[in-house]
């Protein structure tokens, strides 16, 4: 048999049927559900008089709209409250394998709690009405975001009509230098291939740097595959994967565990497997990254400068760059380390796991948030992450330094709750999108790693975290 990629294996093990033009019906193992993209799907199901195909594939939580403080006062925004209550009602009516509602101790960002609960397993197909579902590919799963019509389709049929994507290998060789993290790797990848570089592709991340990453790091990496245009990102299963899954709430037990592990060990690309595209980076060349524009591809080293549109020949690209710098309020050729910030956000499905909070706390410990910084906040990815961090005393480290320590949720990554930037405010953010208005209308987002965000909070401007570690 021809050598297969990991993507080939995950795809072919889920094809229910295939028609002449190559459109396949793909079986879905795990369906993650949140309050924003599901109400219309449940309503559609109801209007058509249909029942869910396999409701025990559903794991649900409320995360996008939920507040990150004053939980005793509930959700004050009536429209947000209605959306969360609609999810409550839908789960009451239809059921779920597990539901972690607002105020539950295990509630959190859907892409944090899936893996945390062992609800994301190697070899699965995982979908969610959320583009950052690519996160779960870190477990050698085929995981991708879908729209609400597809949420309804999966609820009703447990399948999706799809065509197989192209395959792309992103190999990161060598080793990372101290202070450089998975976030810097994925930002460097996006800087190299662009936000549409992976469009139409499923990306497999491989190479010695990826093998050396923890599951948290691999999740950060796969999370942002979508910012490179790829619906799915993935990493082969290995001991790191298996040890992470072992003993988790929904992980296989007894005989099933041994059988599962034997299967999971096959979830890697075969020697000699052919990819449609290959990109190779040297890990040792990657410096801490900071975005300076309004697209994740507008990114560079903390040691660099804001680019100069005058040096761009292509008129469409030049206009796009000028527009981005205007929105960001930045002058060409400004050193990145001279950019001062107003707010700091450590959180989101990209960087809110325990390892992220530890990395940020290491930088913060014994220091103070700079006087010019109006707000520095840490939003843990889940109730369990929050509790773990508190048991390690990380909340004290952050609070003593002047950070706010909040309740879990999506928070200021997309600012659907009260956490947001005001017009013109500049933020060092560990989230995934620096689009215009993403963190609040007129807000200016710079994407960085947790350690870099922490360092920026202390200095009041971007600094090379390697110089203060």
């Amino acid at each position, binding site marked *: 048999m021809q050598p297969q990629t990991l993507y080939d294996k995950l795809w072919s093990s889920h094809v229910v049927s295939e028609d002449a033009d190559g459109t396949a019906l793909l079986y879905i193992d795990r369906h993650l559900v949140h309050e924003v993209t599901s109400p219309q799907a449940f309503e559609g199901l109801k209007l058509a008089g249909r029942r869910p195909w396999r409701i025990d594939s559903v794991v649900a939580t409320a995360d996008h709209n939920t507040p990150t403080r004053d939980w005793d006062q509930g959700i004050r925004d009536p429209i947000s409250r209605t959306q969360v209550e609609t999810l409550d009602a839908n789960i009451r009516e239809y059921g779920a394998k597990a539901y972690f509602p607002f105020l539950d101790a295990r509630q959190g960002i859907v892409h944090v709690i899936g893996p945390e609960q062992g609800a994301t397993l190697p070899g699965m197909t995982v979908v969610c009405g959320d583009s950052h579902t690519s996160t779960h590919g870190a477990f050698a799963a085929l995981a991708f975001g879908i729209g*609400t019509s597809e949420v309804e389709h999966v609820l009703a*049929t447990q399948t999706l009509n799809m065509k197989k994507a192209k395959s792309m290998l992103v190999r990161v060789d060598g080793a990372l230098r101290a202070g450089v993290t998975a976030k810097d790797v994925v930002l460097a990848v996006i800087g190299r291939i662009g*936000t*549409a570089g992976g469009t139409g592709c499923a990306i497999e991340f491989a190479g010695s740097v990826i093998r050396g990453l923890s599951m948290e790091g691999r999740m950060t990496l796969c999370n942002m595959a979508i910012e490179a245009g790829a619906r799915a990102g993935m990493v082969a299963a290995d001991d790191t994967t298996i040890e992470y899954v072992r003993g988790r709430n929904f992980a*296989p037990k007894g005989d099933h565990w041994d059988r599962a592990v034997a299967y999971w060990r096959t979830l890697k690309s075969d020697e000699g497997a052919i990819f449609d595209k290959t990109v190779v980076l040297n890990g040792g060349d990657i410096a801490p990254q900071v975005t300076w524009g309004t697209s994740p591809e507008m990114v560079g080293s903390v040691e660099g400068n804001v680019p100069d549109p005058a040096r761009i020949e292509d008129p469409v690209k030049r206009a796009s760059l000028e527009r981005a710098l205007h929105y960001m309020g930045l002058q060409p050729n400004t050193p990145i380390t001279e950019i001062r910030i107003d707010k700091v956000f450590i959180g989101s499905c990209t960087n809110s796991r325990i390892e992220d909070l530890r990395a940020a706390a290491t930088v913060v410990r014994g220091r103070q948030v700079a006087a010019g910084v109006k707000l520095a906040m840490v939003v843990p990815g889940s109730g369990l992450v929050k509790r773990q961090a508190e048991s390690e005393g990380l909340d004290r480290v952050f609070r003593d330094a002047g950070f706010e320590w909040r309740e879990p949720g999506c928070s200021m990554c997309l600012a*659907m709750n009260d956490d947001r930037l005001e017009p013109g405010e500049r933020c060092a953010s560990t989230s995934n*999108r620096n689009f*215009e208005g993403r963190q609040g209308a007129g807000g200016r987002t710079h994407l960085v790693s947790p350690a870099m965000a922490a360092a920026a909070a202390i200095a009041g401007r971007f600094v090379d975290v390697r110089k203060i570690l």
Partner: protein
Amino acid sequence: MEKFTVLDGLVAPLDRPNVDTDAIIPKQFLKSIKRSGFGPNLFDEWRYLDHGEPGMDNSKRPLNPNFVLNQPRYRGAQILLARENFGCGSSREHAPWALTDFGFRAIVAPSYADIFFNNSFKNGLLPVIMPAAVVDRLFLEAEAMPGFRLTIDLPRQVVVIPGGQEFRFEVDAFRKHNMVEGLDEIGLTLKQSDTIRAFEERHRAAQPWLFV
């Protein structure tokens, strides 16, 4: 879903690459639990001079006169002419809902983000892919010629420009069929229920831990 066969429509040019779904419909409007009513907030941050929130009377808000969709010559446009990587970012289907609610039935661009592209077909919004050079030319003509219209013929897979020149475009047979016939995709898939059930049994036998 509404059928899509042949559309003759006014063209509005939106000359920016990488238009993301946060720009198409900002997050504060995603709190709705309905599929309709998003049109007045399409491109909200570009279209209005003030900050929009759900529940506002949009007819009383100050319009940005420089934004293309506010120019009288593009009123009633059904075809959006756009640049590469249109619809990148979030998976929100509210983006095609807002575009169709506003009145668009088709987009012409060199490329789209995958999830947005997929979502559009589910909502009777046809995302036509044209080579960048053709799109460049259409931008020049749409801006130079008030009332510039295109005919998009999905059954024949052609875009017809004024004067009759035709440009062929590619589209998946499956998606085309569903759109031309206005089919309910779920109903179609459920005709394969027995096949799905048979697969499920094999899958359960191979990986029983997935079904515990």
